[in-house]
């Protein structure tokens, strides 16, 4: 190994790492014992490496990033063991029977906007799935339209500037609900639910109404025959600026 070759190998030297035992590295370091010029260069190079390494390792990470990741991505649902399927089928049949019996009862608060709001927030706080993952809003609209979910929604100016991350289709009172997910770096994911106004009793007015529901702040309004519900973390001010 020549002096220049030793220098090239020492470029990638890291103290205390497994690379130090690499045979080429051992041979290169042996050159430091016998060449003062190389030692001087290596001292400056080590200082350079220390500063650059510190710059990389001190990169600031957004405080809300972990929360945003957890809100969007969840582990897949646990598979049901085959031997339990019969029991689950029987339980599902029982639930269906009870549900049908309830269906014939006079509606109480079931179709109210308050219940709709609570259900939608609950859905994203528990475990939700995006049926389409894309930042292409046009693609999202086409997808929702193909599923007979509201696709001609109007985004407020503050939301229109945010990148989309995907969408899903939920169900409410036999109507399809569009769930559009938008990414806000400081607030995490914002969820916009859109449903036909006829599906919701006591729907909100055109004037935005704010309400804390569980861990999320929400704002709702009606426009063009549709009900809009926007939900996200952070306070009222954070949602206000999205309208």
């Amino acid at each position, binding site marked *: 190994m020549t002096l*220049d*070759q030793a*220098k*090239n*190998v020492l*470029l*990638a030297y*890291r103290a205390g*790492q*497994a*690379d130090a035992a*690499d045979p080429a590295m051992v041979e290169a370091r042996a050159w430091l014992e016998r060449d003062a010029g190389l030692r001087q*260069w290596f001292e*400056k*190079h080590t*200082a*350079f490496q220390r*500063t*650059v*390494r*510190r*710059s*990389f*390792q*001190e*990169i*600031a*990470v*957004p405080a809300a*990033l*972990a929360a*945003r*990741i*957890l809100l*969007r*991505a*969840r*582990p*897949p649902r*646990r598979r049901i063991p085959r031997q339990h399927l019969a029991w689950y089928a029987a339980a599902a049949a029982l639930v269906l029977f009870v549900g049908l019996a309830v269906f014939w009862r006079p509606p109480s608060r079931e179709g109210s906007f308050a219940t709709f709001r609570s259900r939608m927030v609950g859905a994203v706080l528990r475990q939700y799935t995006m049926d389409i*993952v894309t930042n292409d809003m046009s693609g999202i609209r086409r997808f929702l339209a193909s599923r007979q979910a509201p696709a001609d929604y109007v985004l407020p100016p503050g939301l229109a500037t945010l*990148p989309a*991350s995907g969408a899903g289709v939920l169900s409410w009172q036999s109507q399809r609900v569009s769930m559009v997910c938008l*990414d806000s*770096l400081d607030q995490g994911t914002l969820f916009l639910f859109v449903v036909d106004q006829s599906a919701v009793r006591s729907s909100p007015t055109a004037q935005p109404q704010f309400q804390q529901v569980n861990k999320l702040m929400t704002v709702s309004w009606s426009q063009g025959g549709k009900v809009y519900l926007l939900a996200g973390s952070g306070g009222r001010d954070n949602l206000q600026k999205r309208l």
Partner: protein
Amino acid sequence: MRGELDFERLVEDYHAPLYRFALSLSRNESDAADIVQEVFYLWAAKGHQLADKTKVKTWLFTTLHREFMARRRRLKRFPHHELAEVENELPEAPPALPDRLDWEVVSVCLGRVDAVFQAPVALFYLEDYAYNEIAEILEVPLGTVKSRIARGIAQLQRMLEIPPGGPREPNPS
């Protein structure tokens, strides 16, 4: 549930180093956050396929690198360079830097380094991975990784000789 706790632990342990790697590559905070989010989304969907759970960190970094490359729609293959070719890119002496250097300065200079060297150099500085582990993450031969790290560092030294704001005062010694 145990599965959810493990996932949350995974996010807690690795979202920061993954973000730093993503930012080193993309040099855009929004893109970096998007890429990291996508990596964990992919883990949630496919992570159960990983047989050796001790390799989860490597899986995450490899997936991030693949995701970054896919987003850049990288088509060109880069030729392998022998280590001897580095000497033409190496400055006479490493630039004298202050003890602390703003990431923004390093980021701009890293962006001027040949694209194929940026990922190995970033992993070299960010994580305590050995060369063979870096090679595994980047899915290139070991010799290629060593060559790219050396050339990348040499180019970075060249770029940092003249930082974006103009010549820097040498560190008094």
